[in-house]
């Protein structure tokens, strides 16, 4: 099948669509770097119609014709929503006799220590639909006994009788002998035409039965919906005259053709957040930045990730459906475990809608409750009365009454003040002081997310540059950077749409992983396995992008013997010989030392997984997207903004900022976001039209 064109012919357009909770953003990129953004209301549950409507609207606004679209790029929440709303397929699990409860037991831990009302997330397959079969793969790979076809036929009959639409197969020790599990899956597929069948080893061929089972179950649970969604959207696009292939963003940060996604939908769970990180990745490569913190804040959550030398960190394990990200690190057990490559993003429940509260002992809290988009912050005038961060930002003078969603949402400052008043009363301070307090608390909680991806990994945030984006990111970026000693904060153009921009510039990617086995001990065998994997991903990518060149990257997941957590080490190009391996081990020791402050000896190093990433580069440079959006010239105004004290603060459009640094305080208003430059910082506009905030002055913030 055809893939995205390598170079865009004249008059061609690329369209990106990113679904959010309230709005769907569609961006068309045309000749000469023309960027036409359109924001339409999302259309749950049929999100596809919003995408189609937005695409038509964008093309019409651009005066472009559907057949001129050469690439249709998409970040979708369809898989995530199926899980969060428990609306996935009715799914069966087929597993080894004695182990049907592995899925429900999980790892036994709970995310909060003292909460005796805790409930485990409802298993995606109820116990009655978990079928045990009399087969066993031993730890050394013998079949004692193999799965019996007659029994599989009986199980299939039960699954059919129950009317189940999807099946996940995960056998104990299948990672040692994947072909046995594939055989079981193939037989079930033949017996159950129309059912969506996943073999766990096809998604994650690694040890640990719970993580593998859970991943396979999630894949099957969301599979039919993703299939239907992608099929309907593809048909709708063709009907609308768009014949370009649909490409979807994976959690790992690469685009993949829709037909391939249908086979591994578990890989698109974090589609939207990954797109944002990729936008920052491309910007950091363009600007030649070594170390970049991507900071994205919207209405309900804030997300941070680290990009080093142009590459984001990829995590092998995460959880979905656990509410906000208390699932990171020590808090596992809140959601459903997934073992697929995903950009490592730390998330906290802080967004414009986060609710501000106090308690009997006089502490000030922000979140975790959120006013959501309905009724939303009190100042929206939709009947909300809970004080939120957005209300605080209005009280503080940071947000004007026309500042949100391009003026679509009108803000009523009196309602914001009324909402914050009880908080101020509880704390015994005036209303602006309470609002400023909430701002600072939010900053500290988001600082934790940035630390999780930097200092907790042995990376000094002071060596990084921050790129702040999302609707609320530029209001907080400078303050968070100050906390962490980050000197420079970049606020790119199209800030509120920046995630969607990532789709336009993302590469197409496929990954393969196999666990290290005893029979791979010889270097030539290891090299041959890498070659086989490279061929596999290259061929798969050729289907999606026939004429393109595939770059192949080889990675070992390594650890010291006995450890349960791995570090990824890139293997240099070249023949896998003792010299190359020595340099790989050297890299591992160095990375371990950097991350954890110590390193061990060569004898203790073991290889856990082999990974191969194939990548087809996107022909579009992010530079094309960075022209200043057209807007009517506006005069500079001034309003009072509260920092440690209230200061008269100039309010200007981005276009009014020059390459010459201007001293804060300053409020810079774009169509879709507001950037706050605190008093002691400076801001200028660089040649990419970024707002660049600098903390390089050593003057402390003014104190009252």
């Amino acid at each position, binding site marked *: 099948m055809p893939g995205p064109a390598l170079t865009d012919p004249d008059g061609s357009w690329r369209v990106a669509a990113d679904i959010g909770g309230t709005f769907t953003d569609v961006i068309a990129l045309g000749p000469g770097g023309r960027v036409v953004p359109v924001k339409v209301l999302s259309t749950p549950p049929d999100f596809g119609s919003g995408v189609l409507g937005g695409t038509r609207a964008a093309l019409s606004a651009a005066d472009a014709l559907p057949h001129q679209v050469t690439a249709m790029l998409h970040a979708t929440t369809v898989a995530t929503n199926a899980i969060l709303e428990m609306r996935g397929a009715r799914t069966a699990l087929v597993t080894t006799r004695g182990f049907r409860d592995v899925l429900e037991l999980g790892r036994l831990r709970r995310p909060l220590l*003292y909460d005796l009302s805790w409930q485990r997330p409802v298993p995606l397959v109820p116990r009655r639909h978990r079928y045990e079969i009399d087969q066993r793969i031993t730890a050394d790979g013998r079949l004692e006994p193999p799965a019996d076809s007659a029994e599989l036929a009986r199980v299939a009959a039960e699954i059919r009788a129950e009317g189940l639409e999807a099946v996940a197969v995960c056998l104990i020790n299948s990672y040692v002998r994947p072909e046995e599990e594939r055989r079981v899956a193939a037989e079930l597929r033949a017996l159950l035409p129309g059912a969506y069948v996943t073999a766990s080893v096809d998604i994650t061929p690694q040890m*640990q039965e719970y993580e593998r089972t859970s991943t396979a179950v999630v894949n099957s649970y969301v599979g039919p919906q993703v299939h239907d969604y992608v099929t309907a959207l593809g048909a709708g696009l063709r009907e609308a005259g768009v014949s370009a292939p649909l490409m979807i963003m994976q959690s790992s940060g690469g685009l993949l053709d829709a037909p391939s996604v249908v086979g591994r939908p578990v890989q698109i769970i974090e589609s939207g957040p990954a797109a944002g990180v990729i936008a920052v990745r491309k910007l950091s490569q363009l600007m030649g930045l070594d170390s970049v913190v991507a900071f994205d804040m919207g209405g309900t959550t804030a997300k941070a990730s680290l990009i080093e030398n142009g590459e984001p960190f990829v995590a092998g394990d995460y959880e979905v459906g656990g509410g906000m990200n208390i699932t990171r690190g020590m808090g596992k057990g809140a959601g459903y475990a997934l073992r697929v490559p995903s950009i490592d993003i730390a998330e906290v429940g802080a967004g414009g809608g986060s609710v501000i509260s106090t308690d009997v002992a006089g502490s000030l809290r922000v979140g975790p409750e959120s006013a959501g988009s309905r009724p939303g912050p009190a100042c929206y005038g939709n009947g909300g009365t809970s004080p939120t961060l957005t209300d605080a930002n209005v009280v503080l003078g940071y947000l004007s009454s026309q500042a949100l969603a391009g003026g679509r949402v009108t803000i009523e400052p009196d309602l914001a003040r009324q909402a914050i008043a009880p908080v101020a009363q509880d704390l015994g301070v005036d209303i602006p002081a309470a609002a400023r*307090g909430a701002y600072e608390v939010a900053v500290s909680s988001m600082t934790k997310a940035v630390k999780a991806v930097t200092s907790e990994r042995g990376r000094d945030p002071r060596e990084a540059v921050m790129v702040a984006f999302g609707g609320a990111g530029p209001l907080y970026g400078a303050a968070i950077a100050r906390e962490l000693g980050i000197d420079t904060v970049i606020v790119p153009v199209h800030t509120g749409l920046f995630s969607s921009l990532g789709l336009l510039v993302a590469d197409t990617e496929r990954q393969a992983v196999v666990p290290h086995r005893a029979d791979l001990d010889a270097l030539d065998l290891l090299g041959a396995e890498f070659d086989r994997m490279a061929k596999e991903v290259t061929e798969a990518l050729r289907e999606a992008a026939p004429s393109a060149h595939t770059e192949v990257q080889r990675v070992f997941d390594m650890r010291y013997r006995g450890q349960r957590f791995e570090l990824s080490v890139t293997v240099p190009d070249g023949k896998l010989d003792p010299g190359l391996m020595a340099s790989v081990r050297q890299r591992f020791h160095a990375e371990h030392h950097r991350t954890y402050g110590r390193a061990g000896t060569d004898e203790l190093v073991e290889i856990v997984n082999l990974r191969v990433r194939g990548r087809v580069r996107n022909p579009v440079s992010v530079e094309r997207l960075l022209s200043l959006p057209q807007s009517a010239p506006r005069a500079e105004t001034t309003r009072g903004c509260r920092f440690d004290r209230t200061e008269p603060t100039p309010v200007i459009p981005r276009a009014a900022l020059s390459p010459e640094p201007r001293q804060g305080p300053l409020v810079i208003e774009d169509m879709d976001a507001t950037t706050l430059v605190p008093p002691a910082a400076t801001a200028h506009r660089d040649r990419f039209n970024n707002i660049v905030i600098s903390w390089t002055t050593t003057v402390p913030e003014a104190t009252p």
Partner: protein
Amino acid sequence: MSPRPISDAATFEVYRNAVTGLADEMAITILRTAHSQIVASSMDFSAALCDASGRVIAQANTCPVHLGSIPEAMGAVLTAFGDSVRPGDVYLLNDPDLGGMHLPDIFAIAPVFTSGQELLGYSVTVVNHVDVGGWAAGSMAVQSTSIFAEGVQIPPSRLCDAGTLNETFLALILRNVREPDLLRGDLEAQLAACHAGGEGLKELAERHGTDGLAALNEELLAYSETLLRSALAEAPDGAYAFEDFIDDDGMGSPPIPFRVTVTITGDTLHVDFTGSSPQVASALNATESFTRSASYAAIQGALGSDIPANSGFYRPLTFTIPEASILNGRRPSARGARGLVAYRIIDTVLGALAPVFPDRVPAAGDGGPDSVAIGITGENGTTNVLWDILCGAWGARPDRDGVDGVSPLGANLANVPVEELEQSGHVRIDGYGYLPDTGGPGRWRGGLSTFRDMTVLAPTVSVQIRSDRRTHLPYGLQGGAQGTPSSNILNPGTPLEQILPAKVVQLLAAGERHRHVTAGGGGHGDPFTRDPDRVLRDVLDGKVTASAATRDYGVVVTPEGAIDTAATRRRRAAGRH
């Protein structure tokens, strides 16, 4: 209402966020760098930060029963080294009579100084090491009768002296344990965590100043104290007594009583264990610190989870703990299996608090994680230890069922993956899951028992099991029935079937099969008032059998899997009363 302790709410919350995040960062460091299965997979370790006078400021999301014992360990270190603490020092201890809990739990504590040599506080870590020597692999055998049989005893000691590691001291420890590489690796993980905590605390001091940090710590302690006092003030005054038991000491003793009277007066709470058992002959003896620690966990669970756990939380709480009792063993009594005591203390204290907080306190759960340690001695004389920890059920809650298969309140342990156990080549796991009809019936059902079946592949292994709740079952509340017993069965379903004691060290030969079953949780409320749809769901899921549904819940389920409404109405009207 109590006076508010906080001078600047925003600064306070900012600090609280930072310091709790730092404690978790320490824990993550241990998790990611540890070498043993019990630490890296089961997560049997804890981390915390203390202030300069040794008070706990912040805890990581780790094991509650460890965390409450930290003040005692800190006290022992300060007594031994308080005058001579230097930057770069690290102290070790595991001696239960000098600040420790039981020998496998080794504390590593590092002081933190500013660059100007001002003492800021301490990074504290405690890890349950896989083996610290003694007569039985794993060093936690119930049948130990003296601490001298349980392994290497480490009084508060200086492992690192101003940055220099005492190699002789470490070599002595390593020579006395079965898995020296693992102990060294896990200890290094502790040191890495101490380092991370220290660096973070220094940053916080740079930001707030040393005096500012001290003031914020006072506020943090006062904050927890205020929240706890305010919750206690709302609770009805009175004295609430409860009694529970450990079945036996593993060496033929009669049932071991735990008696508590919890007295709430105004905004204070007193816990009095008078009348509980004297210390026992086996290793089921706790320390006073551990008894307090378990009580803190129970009280915090009953009050809800919002109050930050730190030394301020402990202030409104006082204790009477008898000397030379099972709650406070006297040297040289053995302490290795004292974990079980903590879980029973939690059950007993929660039982006493049930009438005080009837909408929050659950029925009893499985009574503690059952531990199974498998020792395999190789031909070269080295011994491997495989740890398996089985957690069963939570008791039913006042408004919802107990959780089926989860770590108990006192701990937050993970299971060891079946595939990981099998990779050792020494055992095969034949099944791991729930058993039906094991959750105590109630309006809300208790959690189900978990079983694990294991076949021995190695020529011989020694299996050391610590379990309980075989004769004294998890209690129900408000008309809910009690849970079901735990069991150990050798070669189940064969002519060689043999019921093993709950607490046992047993040699098994290749081909022998062992089944362990954890206890089922107690029920809450009258089972005949349980929503029939919930009963039906349990029947369809095989968690309750149809006959038990009729017998225990008065709900008649047809063979087609539907509720027989008329029969159910009749059955329930006839009642069991």
